[in-house]
């Protein structure tokens, strides 16, 4: 696979990660985290670890997110001023983070390029050969797919039950 796509994916990941940390709403933060997992799963798949990609997708994008959503929905909100105070504090602390990450990223990339490492070559030789993503995803792990569907449903209901009505209440 070609480098630009990889870099693009990595970039997306960084963005998602930063968003997850920085976003004010916990719910949106959790969704950002899910996005991060999805990107990571795609990356893993392209790097030749389809199984890992699949599990990442199931666990992190699906389950963990839903659990986060549930957890968030179960906890109460702090008073508005206090919460904003907290967020301001956190923002100040994490403001330097993107810059820091960017610098490290640049350095690592430069080092890779300098050493001429072929990224596409890293793949687990012991891993079974899966013909296609489609086969893997839709045929071999169709149970998980079903699981994902239900998980997402559950997450949706969690939001419905615990958020929507709370606002009404």
């Amino acid at each position, binding site marked *: 696979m070609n480098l630009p796509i990889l870099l693009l994916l990595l970039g997306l990941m960084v963005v998602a990660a930063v968003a997850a940390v920085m976003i004010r709403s916990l719910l949106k933060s959790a969704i950002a985290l899910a996005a991060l997992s999805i990107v990571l799963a795609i990356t893993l798949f392209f790097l030749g670890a389809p199984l890992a990609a699949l599990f990442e997708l199931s666990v992190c994008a699906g389950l963990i997110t839903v659990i986060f959503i549930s957890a968030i929905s*179960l906890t109460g909100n702090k008073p508005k001023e206090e919460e904003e105070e907290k967020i301001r504090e956190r923002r100040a602390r994490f403001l330097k983070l993107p810059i820091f990450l960017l610098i490290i990223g640049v350095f690592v990339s430069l080092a890779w390029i300098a050493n001429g490492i072929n990224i596409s070559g890293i793949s687990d030789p012991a891993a*079974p050969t899966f013909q296609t993503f489609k086969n893997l995803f839709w045929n*071999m792990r169709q*149970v*998980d797919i079903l699981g994902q569907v239900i998980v997402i449903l559950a997450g949706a209901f969690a939001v419905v039950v615990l958020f929507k009505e709370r606002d009404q209440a």
Partner: protein
Amino acid sequence: MDNLLLIITGSWIALPLLVILICNLLDKKTGKSWALPAAIVVSIGQMITTGLGLLQLGLTKSGFINFTIFWNVNDFEEIARSAWASAFFSVDTLSLVVMFAIGMVSLISVLTAKKMNPDKALNFTNLLMVLIMGMNGLAMVADLFSLYVFLEITGVASFILIALYKDKKGLEGSFKYLIMSAMASAMILAGIAIMNAVTGGVTFSHISGLFASGSSLHTFHAISLVLLVAGIAIKAGLAPFHGWLPDAYESAPASVSVLLGGIVTKMAGVYAILRLAQDVFINAKGFNYSLLLLATVSIVYGAVAALKQKDFKRILAYSSISQIGYIVLGAVCGSPLGFIGAMLHFFNHATFKSTLFVNSAALESQVKTRNIEEMGGLAKQMPLTGTSSVLALLSTAGIPPLAGFWSKLLIIIAVWQTGHSLIAGIAVFASVFTLAYFLMIQRKVFYGPAEEKFAGVREVKGGLAVSQVMLSVITVVMGIIFPLVLLFFQTRGMI
């Protein structure tokens, strides 16, 4: 695969899904008013289809039925053999028995929920359908990772159900459950990951092949098993992993605690143990012994701790811990008889514990309290509740001729036969404690001089009454027809 089988197997996932779709896509009012009846239909449907499934199973030689979900893959056989494939569901007797219990308890739960306001009813139904799908999936999977996925579905649905009314207590209980459950998830997931790494696969058949061959335990196997055992023990609520359980049971709404106590935590934890003990870690001594130990501790702890509780539901929660111990004991002692006992006890526990939770709901609705110290002599005003609670408690304590006796008997026999006579002794004697706290309930709530202040109390009607009668009948009938059950398992070749 003939059409009937297709319909049967399909209905286990499709029917709840259909209900969700219909109820949510219809206009709001219709959806809300249809929700609970639809849930009843699903539950009864599940009871019927699992019954048919059991008959169908009798026709097969292998003792299980495999089927795919969305579509048939071309190279099914090859995929099925793969160490990574989770392309199909697989049902055997165990699955069908627990699925029948799921249908039954769901029905009871819905009947108990009859009085809910329509908004809640819709949400409740939605989540119940998710829960049913989760538990059905759990009962049918043949792969460790998929097992985990469905465990989580079950978990998530029950968190939300506990907090359905969003009162402080419910939220707190739910949160405790969630935190402990998250710990469990982490451990289980880590365990699965390590297992995958060291055995090179996650399907049951793949791993069991390795364990059955009797090769010595690798350190990483052991680590994986430790994590799995601990994780599942949390889910099951085995002592000392049980902390969340009484709080969650106590704080849940009545109809939800029927579900939780009757089936959900059993599915999440105990079913997993049953499944793993039967199909996966067949000769894994560490798995068996550590769970034997935990089960014994639970039996004693649950029975003793219940003695001093005041809250009806809390007593039931501790009782659950104790009963879970019995089921696990039967599952991991390593004898087919014990396994059948565990399976039957699973079912019986679903029956009698649901009965008791329904009793608790009935009392709560009529007497407006769950504190047993504040009640007394209610057997006169509430004969149905009184009688059904007597039957359920005797069944729990393992007093013949009720259903609970037989399953407990099989478990104890198996435990003794496999050489754990001391544990068998402890387990048997703990049932005296079980009896003790149930007698305490009876004494303080039902069986006693009639009190003035309860003169106006009336017996419950409708759903609660129906479910009490239904469950009592099942408890008694299961006890009486036990010989036939035994014959059934013989024809199944399980004894």
